[in-house]
């Protein structure tokens, strides 16, 4: 090894504390980068493999009832490769020892052959025997939630008839990687499950022998999804088609894609913060190192080392620190990836998790960090090595100080001498002071962003489940039913109040933009389901026209007063022009709302309802549910409180993970910045402080000069960090918003105080470490060394 390289390693060892702090910051940046990107890549790879091996379809459609013979016609549509028809139905389930409403989505499997598309990955047991109407395969998440194994059984109401179903196997499907009940905001593994049964048996139960109501197909290479969908809709139109859709609108696929988008955004934001901070810290530390080695540089140059040789030497030092941080970051990143991967696998049910860390990701991480670090340091290195050796050998001119603005404003006598030293020091190097503040502020901002999701979720739950929904239970009927059904509900023991609603599947159209959704018809003066305007005031439902989720203004480009075309996808399938009566603020999904009577007029169906919101006597809730299970026309019921609880249960683990990661990361940054600043101040001003000690200052007093400055920086950084945090949250929210959800920026004061606390504690810890050094300042030695 060359002597200069030996020097490199020894120099690094000499500044190991500071180097370690920087390595930790780089490690944090690289590991989050690796974590987010590799988890995204892994999930994409896993999804791709699972989709490929299990024939995930390209286009999906549902209809009322179509003859099996139609399959031939559909297969003949240009661009269609394989077609699979199925029978699918929502069923009420009655799980032993679980008294809450549970819904199942029952899907048929061919009896005489394996399925062509959306095939099952059997985790346990076997497929149901053909023709058997009491055997089902159940989805894994649902089976786990209820501890089902092959042989377990539970009750189900299939087309109004009670049946005991036995679990023959447990499976996963590319179609239901994430199984979310339509209309729900998060998966509920306990209360929603996917069941598969033989086609014949299911067809018989639903009067679908020789017919189907669910269809999926794959496209041949070069097949145009849009064109296939248009033709398919035309074919299914007569049979009550609800409108075909491609993968990108398939729920499970949709959620996965949104998740990838989020991971990509996170991978973009968090690591950049760390890399920026690391570059700044390296700049500070390397500048200092270069300054202390002024005479060594002079000697090296006097012996004929070129300016470039010496610069390269210091750049190597930078790269060495970066390399250490990168390696540590990759290792930690892989570890964190598995943690995050496991959390995702709880939600997204894949048969396996193919972990992949692309060399490109590692290369990019190392490249960006190395590049930023070199860019961040090259200026100070170059400035130091460029000076002529003769000049470098002369001691640096004393730093120039002057009276500060604060001193001019605050009358003399109020500021103590040490406080003046602090102020002058900050004012002398305003850029460095500002960057230190910015660095610490970033720590604070990371905490805010990490925690703000929790606050937002609380807020969304509050809006959605406490201010919009005010019922105890929502009951849905199998089909739109006569308004009389409401009286039946009202007459039940324990039901205090019932309010009808109607939902209709529609395609909304404005110019050439369309969106498939539903219109909810709400009773006049509804009290259990309320519309909230942009300021969350209760908005009265207009007599005429349609009220839309505000995000529709982006999706369809419509404004209040303009007309949109409503293509109803059920019943008589009318197409109507309806004026937009206004917008309401909603964070989840996109919906249209109309007055119930107006909607029924639009449908020309008389007084029909799809379900009811009810309030109940809580003590009688279990018995009410039992009655509902037995009512043939009731498709299912959802208890609002269960929904809230489930939501928090499913989110809790990932929230905790993010809080944990954010806290560690923020702590690392705050520690890194404060510790490095302190060590450098100590190195630069050790003589000055030792001199003060000799003059009779106490340890506490000299610590105040050094640490007081850092304390001041930290205090200034916290409000700035709140601001950065708010901006970053805004950025994240806008970057990941979609028609599935929008994220309101809600940051609770608890989040701010937690962020501030983490920063203050990290700063205090680094301060204490430096204080320890200050206490052991060797007065004589420091005074002897020549600066």
């Amino acid at each position: 090894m060359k002597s200069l390289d030996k020097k490199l390693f020894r120099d690094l060892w000499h500044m190991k504390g500071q180097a370690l702090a920087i390595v930790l910051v780089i490690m944090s940046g690289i590991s989050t980068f690796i974590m987010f990107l590799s988890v995204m890549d892994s999930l994409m790879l896993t999804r791709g493999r699972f989709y490929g091996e299990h024939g995930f379809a390209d286009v999906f459609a549902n209809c009322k009832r179509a003859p099996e013979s139609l399959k031939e016609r559909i297969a003949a549509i240009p661009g269609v490769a394989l077609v699979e028809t199925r029978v699918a139905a929502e069923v009420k389930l009655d799980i032993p020892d679980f008294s809450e409403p549970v819904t199942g989505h029952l899907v048929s499997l061919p009896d005489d052959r394996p399925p062509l598309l959306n095939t099952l990955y059997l985790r346990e047991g076997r497929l149901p025997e053909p023709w058997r109407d009491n055997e089902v395969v159940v989805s894994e998440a649902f089976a786990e939630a209820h501890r089902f194994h092959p042989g377990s059984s539970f009750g189900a109401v299939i087309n109004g008839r009670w049946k005991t179903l036995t679990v023959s196997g447990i499976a996963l499907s590319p179609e239901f990687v994430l199984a979310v009940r339509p209309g729900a905001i998060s998966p509920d593994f306990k209360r929603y499950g996917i069941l598969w049964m033989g086609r014949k048996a299911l067809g018989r139960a639903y009067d679908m022998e020789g017919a189907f109501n669910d269809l999926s197909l794959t496209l041949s290479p070069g097949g145009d999804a849009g064109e296939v969908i248009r033709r398919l809709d035309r074919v299914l139109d007569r049979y009550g088609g609800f409108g075909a859709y491609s993968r990108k609108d398939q729920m499970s696929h949709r959620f996965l894609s949104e998740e990838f988008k989020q991971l990509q955004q996170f991978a973009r934001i968090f690591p950049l913060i760390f890399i920026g901070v690391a570059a700044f810290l390296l700049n500070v530390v390397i500048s200092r190192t270069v300054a202390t080695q002024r005479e060594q540089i002079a000697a090296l140059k006097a012996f004929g080392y070129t300016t470039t040789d010496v610069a390269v030497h210091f750049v190597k030092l930078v790269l060495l620190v970066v390399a250490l941080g990168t390696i540590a970051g990759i290792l930690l990143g892989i570890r964190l990836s598995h943690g995050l991967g496991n959390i995702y696998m709880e939600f997204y049910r894949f048969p396996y998790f193919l972990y992949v860390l692309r060399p490109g990701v590692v290369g990019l991480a190392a490249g960006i960090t190395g590049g930023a670090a070199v860019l961040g340091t090259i200026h100070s290195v170059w400035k130091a090595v460029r000076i002529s050796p003769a000049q470098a050998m002369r001691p640096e001119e004393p730093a120039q100080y002057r009276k500060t603005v604060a001193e001019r404003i605050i009358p003399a006598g109020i500021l103590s001498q040490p406080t003046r030293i602090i102020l002058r020091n900050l004012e002398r190097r305003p850029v460095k002071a500002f960057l230190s503040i910015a660095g610490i502020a970033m720590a604070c901002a990371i905490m805010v962003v990490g925690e703000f999701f929790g606050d937002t979720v609380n807020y969304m739950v509050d809006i959605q489940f406490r201010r919009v929904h005010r019922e105890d239970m929502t009951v849905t009927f199998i089909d739109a039913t006569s308004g009389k059904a409401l009286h039946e509900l009202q007459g039940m023991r324990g039901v205090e109040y019932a309010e009808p609603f109607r939902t209709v599947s529609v395609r909304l159209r404005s110019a050439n933009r369309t969106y498939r959704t539903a219109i909810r018809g709400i009773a006049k003066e509804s009290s259990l389901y309320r519309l909230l305007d942009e300021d969350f005031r209760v908005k009265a439902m207009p007599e005429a026209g349609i009220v839309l989720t505000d995000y529709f203004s982006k999706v369809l480009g419509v404004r209040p007063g303009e007309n949109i075309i409503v293509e109803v996808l059920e019943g008589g399938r009318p197409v109507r022009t309806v004026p937009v009566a206004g917008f309401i603020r909603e964070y989840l999904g996109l919906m249209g709302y109309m007055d119930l009577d107006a909607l029924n007029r639009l449908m020309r169906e008389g007084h029909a309802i799809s379900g009811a919101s009810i309030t109940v006597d809580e003590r009688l809730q279990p018995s009410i549910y039992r009655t509902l299970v037995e009512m043939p026309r009731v498709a299912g019921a959802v208890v609002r409180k269960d929904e809230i609880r489930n939501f928090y249960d499913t989110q809790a683990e990932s929230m905790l993970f993010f809080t944990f990661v954010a806290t560690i990361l923020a702590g690392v940054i705050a520690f890194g910045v404060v510790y490095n600043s302190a060590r450098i101040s100590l190195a630069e001003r050790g003589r000055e402080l030792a001199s003060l000690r000799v003059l009779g200052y106490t340890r506490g007093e000299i610590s105040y000069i050094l640490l007081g400055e850092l304390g001041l920086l930290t205090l200034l950084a916290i409000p700035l960090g709140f601001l950065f945090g708010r901006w970053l949250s805004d950025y994240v929210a806008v970057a990941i918003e979609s028609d599935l959800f929008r994220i309101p920026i809600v940051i609770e004061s608890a989040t701010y105080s937690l962020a501030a606390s983490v920063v203050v504690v990290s700063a205090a810890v680094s301060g204490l470490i430096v204080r320890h050094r200050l206490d052991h300042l060797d007065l004589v030695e420091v005074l002897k060394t020549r600066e």
Partner: protein
Amino acid sequence: MNTTAQHAGSETAGIVFQVRGLTKVYEMGEVKVQALRGVDWDLAEGELIVLLGPSGSGKSTLLNIMGGLDTASGGTVTYRGKELTLATEQELTEYRRFQVGFVFQFYNLIPSLTARENVSVVTEIAKEPMEPENALALVGLSERLDHFPSQLSGGEQQRIAIARAISKNPAVLLCDEPTGALDSQTGVVVLEALERVNRELGTPTVIITHNADIAAMADRVVHLSNGMIVNIATNAARRPPAELRW
């Protein structure tokens, strides 16, 4: 710039340095400091010169310009026929790398490297260097090869610095107050090392000092004062450093 010592112009044969009308002005903020006010002087092959003068007389400035560490404000310095004052940054670097051995008052060792490694730092980039061990043996430090500067006395550190300077077999040896930070006993050891290199290897050597007692070991003594040469004295015979006392 030609870096081989043998290529010398005929008119300056036997002359290593030819300094003519050399001036140097430092601008320190608004203050101008005239460090050299027109210096004329030649250094011949094999000579050992002592540059004498009080602090601020311009000794170090002269030496730094001769060593290619600093640039002149006016006048010329010719090294073996080549004008240093016209050399580019790159040429000066090469000149320092291959021609000059420099010894500093404060040693300027690299604290994170051992004695041997401090010498290697120079031999690694030189053309036909000595083994670092041999260079250290010349200054009597064979026993201290793997000690770090902090484990050595000032005299030992300065001898490493000398070993470092001579290890590249320099064409000229320039020493800035090599004994300035040492007591007289240690100073003698250091001067002996320099004298021995000059005598055995024939390396032309310039030693700066403000200590007149050292002048007796030189072939010639150049007195500087206030940026000008006030006197050049030739010693009839060089006295061995061991006989010097101060």
